[in-house]
Every structure is written in C-alpha cells, then in structure tokens.
C-alpha cells in the first residue's frame, strides 16, 4: 500500500477515459436527448395548435350550421308565403272565372228564354190567328188586322 507507478497509470487512464467519454459517449447522448426534447416540444406545440384549430373549426361549423338553419327557415317561410299567395291567387281567379261563367250562363239562359218567349209568342200568335180564322171561318186579312194581332201577341 505505497504510492508508486500506479498513480501515474491511473492518471493516464483517467485522461484517456475522460477524453473517450467526452468524444464518443457524452456528445452523442446529449445530442440525442436535446433533439428529443426539441421534438417533444414541437409535438406539444403541434398538439396545442391542433386543439386551437379544432376549436376554431368547431366554431366555424356551428356558425355555418346556424346560418344554414336560418337560411332554411327563410326559404321555408318564403315558400309558405308563396304557396299561400298562389292559393289566394288561384282562389281569386277561380272565383272570378266562376262568376264569369255564371254571368255567361245567365246571359245565355236569358237569351234562350227570350228567344223561347219570342218563338212561343210567334207560335201563340199563329195559333191565335189560326184559332180566330177557324172561328171566323174566313181568312183574316193580316194587313187589316195586323194592329189587333200585334196587340194580342204582345199581351200573351
């Protein structure tokens, strides 16, 4: 247990081992560790960003959805309005058409009635004249009795 060359040997090997550790062990390991640290930090940042993006996207989606709903409601409302309007228009038109048809029919009826009346009147006048002829047994001078016949006809 005395001091001897071992001391020098240990100092030399110490120097060599520290140099080796510095050169081939420490730098590689610490580089890897630092790179990993950077990578993890980056990953965390990315996650944060993604979370924010997601939030924004969700907000955006909600907004879009709201807009779409509002738009749909608008469209439905206007469609309803338009439908009501069309129905009203149709009703009005139908009523007008009906009235028109009714008036035409009335006019036609009236006309028919009038012509029937005229015809009837003529026929009655004819009958009356024929009757009178029979009664009188003589021909009635149409010209002589025209006034009388017309008066008769108009009384019918």
């Amino acid at each position, binding site marked *: 247990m005395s001091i001897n060359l071992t001391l020098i040997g*240990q100092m030399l090997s110490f120097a060599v081992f*520290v140099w080796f550790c510095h050169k*081939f*062990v420490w730098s590689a390991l610490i580089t890897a560790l630092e790179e990993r640290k950077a990578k993890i930090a980056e990953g965390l940042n990315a996650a944060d960003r993604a979370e924010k993006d997601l939030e924004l996207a969700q907000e955006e989606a909600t907004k879009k959805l709201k807009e779409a709903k509002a738009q749909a409601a608008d469209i439905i409302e206007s469609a309803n309005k338009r439908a009501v309007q069309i129905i009203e228009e149709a009703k009005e038109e139908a009523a007008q058409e009906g009235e028109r048809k009714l008036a035409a029919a009335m006019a036609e009826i009236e006309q028919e009635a009038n012509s029937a009346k005229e015809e009837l009147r003529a026929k009655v006048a004819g009958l009356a004249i024929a009757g009178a002829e029979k009664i009188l047994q003589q021909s009635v001078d149409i010209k002589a009795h025209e006034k009388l016949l017309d008066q008769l006809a108009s009384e019918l």
Partner: protein
Amino acid sequence: MASGEQTSTEYINHHLTNLTFGRFPDGSWGFATSKNIEELGFMAIHVDSMIWSMGLAALFLFLFHRVAVKATTDVPTGFQNFVEMIVEFIDGQVKETFHGQTKMVAPLALTIFCWVFLMNLMDLVPVDLVPWLISLLGVGYHKIVPTTDPNVTMGMAFSVFALMIFYSFKVKGVGFIKELTLQPFTFKNPFVQVLIIPFNFLLEIVSLIAKPFSLGLRLFGNMYAGEMIFILISLLYTGGLILGLMGGVLQFGWAVFHILVVTLQAFIFMVLTCVYMSMAHEDH
C-alpha cells in the same frame, strides 16, 4: 477462505496487499512476493488495481458507447432508458454547480461518477471470492476494489487538480496569481500589501493543495474502511457455527449499508469535482 495455517494478521495482510509488479533494488523486474514486497520503491505498479480500474472504466464506456451510437430521438427502451437517466442526472448536477463555458466538465463528471461507482461496487463482492479464484491460477495477491488503493484515488484527484490548475490559468490568467496572493488579506496600502503577499500565498496554496488531497483521501478512506470491515467480518467465519452465522448476518447488513456508501462516495467525488472546476472558472 485461504489456507488454514494463516493467522488472522496474515489473513488481513494478505487481503490488503496488491498484486505488485516492480523493479527490485538489484535492478530486476518481477512480481513481488510476501518476502520482497517491502523492497519495492516507486517503480512498481499494482497490476490488480490497474486491471480492475481500467477494466471497469472500459466496461462503463463500452456499455454507454453502445447506447450512444444507437441513441435516437424515438422512445428509449431498456438499457438506453437507464443510461439516459444517468446522463440527465449528471447533466442536471453539473448545470447546477458549474456555469462556465467548458464542455469538458459534464463528461468528466459522468466518467467520474460511473467509474468510481463501479470501482466502489467491487467492494460488495465477497472479499474471499476473487482472491481464492485467482489463487487457483497461482497468483498470490489480489485486491479487486481499486478505490481501496490510494494510488487510484489520488491519481484521479491529481488529474482533477491538474484540470483545475489548467482551467484556472486558461480562464483567469494572471487573475489566478492574484487570487493566490492578494487574498484573504487585502490592504489599501500597496507597501503593506506586498509585505503580506507571502503570507497570503502560504494560506491560499495550502487551501489549494488541500483540495486534491481531501478529494482523493476521502474516497480512499471510506472504501478502505469498508473493505477492512468486510475482511474483519469474514474472519468470523473461522470461529465456529455461531460466530459464522453472526458473520453472515453482519456481512449482509454491512453490504446493504455499503450500497449507500458506494453511491454516496461516487456522488461526492463527482460533485466536488464539479465544484472545483466551477471555482477554477469563476472570479471571486
């Protein structure tokens, strides 16, 4: 257990003797035996200390280098995890104590911590196991704990000291000389200041020199004492069944306690190195 004819003193001495290769006074080189080991001077080398210390450092560097080569930024697994844990721990310790620019300090601290730890850990191997195995090969002495050899601990402490001096001059230049001479006693009067310089220098140089010695001897003392207690405990095994059982319990207890000492001493050596390097880099 060594042969039965040994006395306790011989047994202890045997365990405390390194396998030494050196130059004898007659100029011949060779392995020392119990008869001529005292004749060896400085020109001798503790073969066992050197083999174990270099072997353990090589083991540590081999394992760490293998991880370092394959280290990626992916999720670490298994042993890489363990290595990274140690590296991060050392990095944290160094960053806490050392604020200079030198890139050397962290790998220095890592080497010291792992190396000293492994060397200390050899203390937990039963004291008789390796010497007995090696005696089967015909080798007389063997100490497997390099840190119980003052040459090893002082070698490391002197290396650290050399780095301290080197960086002190490199970073502070003349400031380092001033640090050694112009404090702790500072006077406004230049004449008195010059007079006090030798005294200041004496104080500062003592505190400077004390650093490597306290560093190396603290580790040596702790490990040597621990080893000694293991040897004493193993002496109990010769004392019959009861003492033998007691020895077993004691050995286990001391080994468990020693795990703490082993780690703590490695840690202290590492931290003090960082502190000394930090002192070398900073102006007062």
